[in-house]
């Protein structure tokens, strides 16, 4: 049997922000295999965004190492950035540009051009049901439509790894279904997905493996079904989440 390829390796990762005495993430070790849909779950302020930010190369860790497809940001930042796709929680698009203009711009930044880019944009717009709105400006789009374009901008270049930060927050059921369905299709084609969400039910159904993170530490990780079966009182992922992270309200 062929050994799984760790497309992401996180080793002893620690991050202290300037002026804070407690780490945002504390000595995390994690391997994510190629082709996984990995859910990074946790309450507000748990360290999810910090972890994703380091994995995207937004900033470096205080200590520890991150390997993306065997490469490190210190040496191969441009190469890593060309194989990852990021779908931020905010609608990171230019409102005064049309959907096509936004996608063409982001495509060019990924090095796509000409007919190939045009075909890819048309294909994605059609896939997400937005082909009729291709020439409308983003500011005229509904929340769900913006989310879909936001997602397309991150997957246009067919990345090996996609980071999704709350990709379905604030969207209607129809848009959510379309988004998740196409993400599954991408995953079937071999794309690794790193996903954060507060929707436990969605994570339970969508992810092949999850890690629950709190106060900068990974509390537990595994396949959702295995985690649910691990204790009798666990009925679903939400019950595990509440059991581990507590019921107290969390601030950002």
């Amino acid at each position, binding site marked *: 049997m062929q050994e799984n390829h760790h497309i992401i390796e996180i080793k002893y990762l620690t991050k202290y922000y*300037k002026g804070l005495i407690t780490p945002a993430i504390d000595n995390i070790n994690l391997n994510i295999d190629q082709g996984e849909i990995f859910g990074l779950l946790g309450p507000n302020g748990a360290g999810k965004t910090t972890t994703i930010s380091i994995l995207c190369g937004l900033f470096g860790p205080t200590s520890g190492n991150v390997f993306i497809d065997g490469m490190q940001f210190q040496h191969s930042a441009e190469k890593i950035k060309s194989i990852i796709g990021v779908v*931020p929680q*905010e609608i990171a*698009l230019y409102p*005064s540009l049309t959907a096509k203009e936004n996608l063409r711009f982001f495509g060019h930044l990924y*090095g796509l051009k000409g007919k190939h880019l045009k075909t890819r944009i048309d294909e994605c717009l059609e896939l997400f049901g937005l082909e009729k709105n291709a020439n409308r400006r983003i500011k005229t789009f509904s929340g769900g439509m913006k989310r879909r374009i936001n997602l397309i901008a991150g997957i246009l270049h067919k990345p090996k790894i996609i980071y999704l930060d709350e990709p379905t927050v604030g969207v209607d059921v129809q848009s959510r279904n379309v988004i998740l369905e196409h993400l599954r299709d991408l995953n079937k084609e071999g794309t690794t997905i790193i996903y954060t969400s507060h929707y436990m039910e969605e994570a339970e159904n969508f992810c092949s493996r999850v890690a629950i993170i709190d106060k900068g530490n990974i509390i537990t990780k595994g396949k959702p079904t295995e985690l649910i079966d691990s204790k009798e009182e666990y009925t679903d992922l939400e019950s595990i989440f509440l059991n581990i992270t507590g019921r107290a309200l969390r601030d950002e």
Partner: protein
Amino acid sequence: MLRLLSSIYKEFLILIRDRAGLAILFIMPLVLILIMTVIQDATFKTVKQVNISMILVNNDKDSLGEAISEGLYASEFFQIVEEIDGEKITKEKAEELVAQGKYKLGIIIPERATEAIRGNVNALINKSFKSFNIPGVKKRTKKSTIDITIYIDPVTSQSFKNMVMSSLKEFTSQLEIEMFFKNFSEAMAQLMPDQKPIKFESFGTINYKEIYASTTNDEILPNSVQHNVPAWTMFAMFFIVLPLAGNIIKERDDGSAFRLKTMPGSFITIMFSKIFVFLGVSFLQFILMLLVGVYIMPLLGLPQLEIGSHKIALGVMALASGLAATGYGVLIGTIATTHEQAATFGAVSIIIFAALGGIWVPAYVMPPALRIISQFSPLHWGLNGFYDIFLRGGDLTVVLSETAKLLTFFIIMLGLAIVYNKLNKTK
């Protein structure tokens, strides 16, 4: 290259679709230079054209009062008011009217002012001819003083006040000289009866010839337009800092900058695309402002802007100034965390640069310490460069030093923005 071109195109689309922003970018600077040039034109015109209202209360009714009155009327600098509703203005009324701001100045010539001067002149002649005992010359030796009171509206500019004072002193001195000469001449005539009294006349020996020095043969006459268009153009061009910094902050606020940071391509590529587009805007602003100087200002009764024959030097200076302004905008946009910070700091710092640069008050009249500091204002370099071209007829070689300083400023600003961005990444 594809990334840069695509980023430039994206910036261009964003810019042209913000119609209100575009209007502000192009209309406001034009309004600014038009208004400032018209206002400043008054300081370049002779006061004759301004024709300021002034009260004259002449209680002397003799030579001095007549001389001052005639001088003021003849100069046509002022609109002289001596009566209101057919009634002579009194000293008290004059003070009240000036205090109310209805008139800028009130000049009160006291009674027997001429007599006082005449007495002093006689006293001096008496002293000179004491031993001759001339019968016609009065035996008065006591020196008198007279006070010509001038009420000044506190809002009156110092330079205008100085001009009036200098005119009055000239009238009184002239009268004293004429009186002295007349009396002296009469006294001499009594000592030497064969000699007829000589009538006083001015020789006009000394003439003043004004030549505007130039390093070339170009004859450019300084006027309000030649001074103000380059000054306010420079000032307006620097205001490109605000929309540019706003563009950077907006991109950060709406999350696009976050996405860009996770994509291939450098911070410099993104910033260069913005610099390229906003440099184009500032260059267009510059051309429009020149066109206003050449074609619109004459329609408003202002002199026509003479752009001279060194158009390449002009273009190079405009590009260097635009680069300095966009570099500064990139730095502010990178460091400021909110629109409010960028707008407040950006606007105030440009006004400080402009003040130090000599936009309002020429640098050569500043206190020594400020004169040194003004040497470090990019607006000072830009203004000097434009003055070299517009007023001194300078060519590209003349403005090379200013161009180099502006380009160095651009490189330093961009360098600081890159370093700050890098430091921020390792927070």
